[in-house]
């Protein structure tokens, strides 16, 4: 493991410190936590607070999306480990402006339980808290009887849409309704060239051969659904868009947003080449994305790979929310 760090057990604290000190215009630390809140308190006044969080290692997620028009606060857990309820609770209190707080949670046992416990704490303070559990990763079978699907890069769209709505004055109930409507329209699938190495663990989550890739890997190096030899970008796109189409039934008469997301160690050049192939493939469906982003938005430490998110925009208002200006480090 070759990493630019000091103590593997202290990476989160140092990372949060580096982030808040580099960008004091956007975020500041909530004292005694590894959570951050908007520096611009004025921009939060009278609005519903939107918070998000989870394990660290997904930078710029989550703290990079805190700022006017997007998240109010974010909680940075240990690497790939859900943050604890006390820290989430601190973020709830920092985000609450009397209109309540909405939590964006990704569908992992740990995240759900810790955010739930934080909500219990907030209940005792009479802070109204609601939440949505994002489960956009279609690599995993959907099932009522299990945990269900993972929350991955598509969460970015949820942050953006709810953040814009809150900034424009939506109430907690309206935010909840919006979140519920948006959720089933966001789908993501990934391909990995190599797994992430958690600094505390010191070795990669799995090892792929020099010519191997794996489809369907999660953002914590959870194994995917198939391993095979590396293919040209076009063919990776064929597989991933194929899976998304099975799930979403792509339709040229509908509008879509598209996110090509680098996993951390994948150069932008490769991401743009991949994006080009995605656009070619979508052309076959007569789809030209109404909104598009390419870059490292929801990473997995030093994992090499790309995820592709498609989001069916059922309501033009959602597109306005995506285009609504924000002041954050990373959107």
């Amino acid at each position, binding site marked *: 493991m070759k990493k630019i760090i000091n103590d593997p057990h202290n990476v989160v604290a140092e990372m949060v410190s580096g982030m808040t000190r580099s960008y004091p215009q956007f975020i500041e630390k909530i004292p005694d936590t590894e959570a951050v809140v908007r520096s611009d308190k004025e921009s939060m006044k009278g609005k519903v607070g939107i918070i998000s969080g989870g394990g660290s290692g997904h930078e710029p997620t989550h703290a990079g999306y805190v700022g006017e028009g997007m998240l109010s606060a974010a909680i940075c857990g240990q690497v790939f480990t859900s943050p604890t*309820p006390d820290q989430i609770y601190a973020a709830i209190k920092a985000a609450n402006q009397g209109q309540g707080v909405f939590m964006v949670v990704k569908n992992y046992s740990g995240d759900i339980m810790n955010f739930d416990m934080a909500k219990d704490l907030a209940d005792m303070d009479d802070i109204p808290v609601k939440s949505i559990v994002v489960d956009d990763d279609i690599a995993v*079978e959907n099932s009522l009887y299990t*945990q269900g699907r993972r929350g991955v890069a598509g969460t970015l769209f949820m942050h953006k849409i709810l953040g814009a709505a809150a900034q424009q004055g939506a109430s907690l109930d309206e935010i909840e309704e919006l979140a519920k409507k948006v959720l089933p329209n966001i789908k993501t699938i990934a391909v990995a060239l190599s797994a992430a190495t958690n600094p505390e*663990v010191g070795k990669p989550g799995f090892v792929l051969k020099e010519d191997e890739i794996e489809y369907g890997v999660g953002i914590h190096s959870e*194994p995917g659904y198939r391993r095979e030899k590396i293919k040209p970008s076009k063919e990776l796109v064929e597989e991933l868009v194929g899976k998304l189409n099975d799930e979403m039934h792509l339709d040229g008469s509908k509008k879509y947003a598209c996110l090509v997301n680098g996993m951390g160690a994948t150069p932008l050049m490769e991401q743009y080449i991949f994006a080009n192939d995605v656009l070619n493939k979508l052309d076959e469906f007569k789809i030209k994305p109404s909104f598009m982003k390419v870059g490292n938005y929801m990473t997995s430490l030093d994992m090499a790979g790309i995820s592709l998110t498609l989001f069916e925009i059922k309501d033009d208002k959602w597109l306005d929310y995506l285009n609504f200006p924000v002041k954050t480090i990373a959107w």
Partner: protein
Amino acid sequence: MTLTVDTLTSWMNNFADKIEVNKQYLSDLDTPIGDGDHGFNMSRGMKAVREKLTTKSVDLQAGFKNIAMALISTVGGASGPLYGTAFLEMAKKSSSTDDLGELLKAALAGIQNRGGAKPGDKTMVDVWSELVPEVKAGTLSKDKIERAVESTKDMVAKKGRASYLGERSKGHVDPGSESSGYLFEALLETEGLL
């Protein structure tokens, strides 16, 4: 089979020792079917617990609560709220009883409530639901603990991170079950308890 502040303390210190020694092993168990951090999570938590235990609690309830809060606020992940809830429930229960079997029963109910797992879902619930009755019956043994932990190996995970693997989660012992096994072993080894 009644617990005191002192026996609770030695039980916990013993548990902390086991976690520390097996930290890497627990994380290794968490690698093929999870994210490889269970040992580190538990170790972080038990260090905080040990810290808390250096000051003697006024009573059993305070002791349980201290342990619960230390776990809840340092472990994170899935195991943090689950172990935290277990000890929080024991704290609540300890106002009415100091019977170990009763306390552990409350803990198990708390874990199931918090995480929604049933026996057979390949989680720590499998170990707890198997062993709590043994504690109550006074029949807990090293052998039974081992068997309870091992039983998770052939299960298909329905909850937690391993559930994303579906059928492929088979063939691996569940890390949270292994750490729970240590908790029961530590109990077994605590003098004057069972």
